[in-house]
């Protein structure tokens, strides 16, 4: 087998194993904690008989491992069970909301990725001069803000100081694409702000790292313009680190989305998760948590695979 293919297969297998272990953690780890599902549904005043009946119907009397495998089997087949609070099918509820989350996250990604790379290039080109200082200064201050704080600053600025947007993002089925785009403008701006800083700083660092090499000095000495040195000589060699930075930050979007959806009362997966944590609806939390974890791990695997593929030393084995 080609060594690169072997590495990639190894990495993916490792990722799948990790996913399995995480699923055990989310299911069995949570079971082991103090707290009784039946008790939390019926409340403190429930009679022992009522508790016993509920445990029977929910299958809580079976051993945890049996329930884990049933759960995993169902999960792999798109059957997430029913919500404890209202008895609705979880898969259907997730299906309605997943699209909204993906729409929000992909809008943010489409803007943030090119912007971060361009700003990173500019900062590297004018290193230690004013464009670099301005860009680095702004990103450094946004990096230390939690998502919801950044969100409220943006809301205040763009709905009160300069009133151009609505402070809530309502999306419902049947809206036209442009209306949807307009509705998510504010949350997208916030998400872009949150991931932009990390992405731009890592891009800058990756390019500056390449700029130290001898062949860059040669290119400079033979009289190429600085922008051309970066575009033709530095960028191709910095692609691997930049791509993995981009993918890692897309994974970071996964967490940002949860908080931002709550801020804007945006009806999607993150809001659904947070709502059901406070209702203590364990099956919903486990299913949605598992989806978020899966996307996060998946993106991390992708980042590693891209890094492997982009490394010329691995592509041409001796």
């Amino acid at each position, binding site marked *: 087998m080609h060594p690169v293919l072997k590495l990639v297969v190894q990495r993916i297998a490792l990722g799948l194993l*990790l996913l399995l*272990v*995480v699923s055990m*953690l*989310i299911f069995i780890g*949570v079971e082991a*904690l*103090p*707290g009784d599902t039946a008790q939390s549904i019926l409340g403190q005043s429930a009679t022992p008989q009522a508790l016993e009946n509920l445990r029977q119907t929910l299958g809580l009397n079976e051993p945890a491992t049996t329930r884990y495998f049933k759960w995993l089997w169902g999960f792999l087949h798109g059957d997430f069970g029913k919500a404890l609070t209202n008895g609705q099918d979880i898969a259907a509820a997730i299906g309605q909301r997943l699209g909204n989350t993906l729409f929000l996250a992909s809008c943010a990604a489409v803007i943030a990725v090119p912007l971060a790379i361009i700003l990173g290039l500019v900062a590297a080109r004018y290193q230690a001069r004013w464009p670099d200082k301005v860009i680095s200064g702004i990103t450094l*201050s946004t990096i*230390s*803000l*939690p*998502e*919801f*704080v950044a969100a*409220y*600053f943006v*809301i*205040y600025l763009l*709905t*009160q100081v300069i009133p151009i947007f609505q*402070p*809530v993002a309502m999306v419902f089925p049947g809206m036209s694409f442009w209306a949807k785009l307009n509705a998510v403008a504010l949350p997208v701006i916030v998400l872009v702000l949150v991931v932009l800083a990390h992405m731009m700083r890592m891009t800058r660092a990756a390019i500056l790292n390449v700029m130290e090499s001898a062949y860059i000095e040669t290119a400079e000495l033979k009289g190429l313009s600085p922008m051309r040195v970066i575009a033709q000589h530095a960028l191709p060699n910095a692609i691997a680190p930049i791509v993995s930075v981009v993918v890692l930050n897309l*994974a970071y979007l*996964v*967490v940002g989305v*949860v*908080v931002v959806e*709550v*801020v804007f009362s945006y009806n999607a997966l993150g809001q659904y*998760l*947070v709502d*059901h*944590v*406070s209702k*203590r*609806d*364990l099956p919903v*939390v*486990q299913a949605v*948590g598992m989806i*978020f*974890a899966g996307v*996060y*791990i998946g993106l*991390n695997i992708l980042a590693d695979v891209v890094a492997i593929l982009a490394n010329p030393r691995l592509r041409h084995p001796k």
Partner: protein
Amino acid sequence: MRRIPLSALIGMILTGGFLFCAIFAEWVAPYGYDEVLGKVWESPSSTYLLGTDTIGRDILSRLIYGARITIFVALAASILSFSLGSFLGFLAAVRGGWIDQVLSRLVDVVMSVPSLIIALVLLSVLDINLTVLIFVIGILDATRVFRLSRAVAMDIAVMDYVEAAKLRGEGQSWVIFREILPNALSPLVAEFGLRFIFAVLFISTLSFLGLGIQPPLMDWGGMVKENKDALVYGKSAALMPALAIALLAISVNLVADWVLTRTSSLKGGRGG
């Protein structure tokens, strides 16, 4: 001692101010934290310096009392994550073998999922109270301290003086606490600042989501949540606690940054 740069000085003064307010809240705050004084969402005035909140309580007083809870929880969580993370990290580095394998793989698994998602899953089962919050944040954060302290201790564990101590017949705890700990302290101290900020942001985010500090206690994240509707009416009430979180995070960051550069230059040359 060399001069302290301006940024670090500003950071120290602000951090000190926050700490002072948190400790002496009873004397600093103009009103009690649950006194209903004025109308809903009054604008800042000379009576209520930062205005009033959703049921007419003084925002400044609530901010000052809230600082106590935010800082206490964050501090307790980062102390827990440090003692747990660095002890296990040192242990893994010194013992190696299966202890190292088990601990490292466990940390890999926990770190492969975003902390917020794990915290949400845990908090859907556990009773939400101060102790549980401190433990959840502290343990999740300990994974990062574990990685750092294990890496630092790995470098120290191969030094001659550690070898000498082992040959002398010193026990495990002597090697960890008397040989490795003093030498690993400076990078760990700089990291403490960053972990503290992380804990502040984490507890604020949880409270904002309604899953952190529960009323009648309140912290800054919870205050943003309480007052978030004010923005729709053009009032700035929700911005004040948000600003406080941002200011605390940035000022601790400035100090931690300075400690980091200072300690790393110390390692390079002692003469300077």
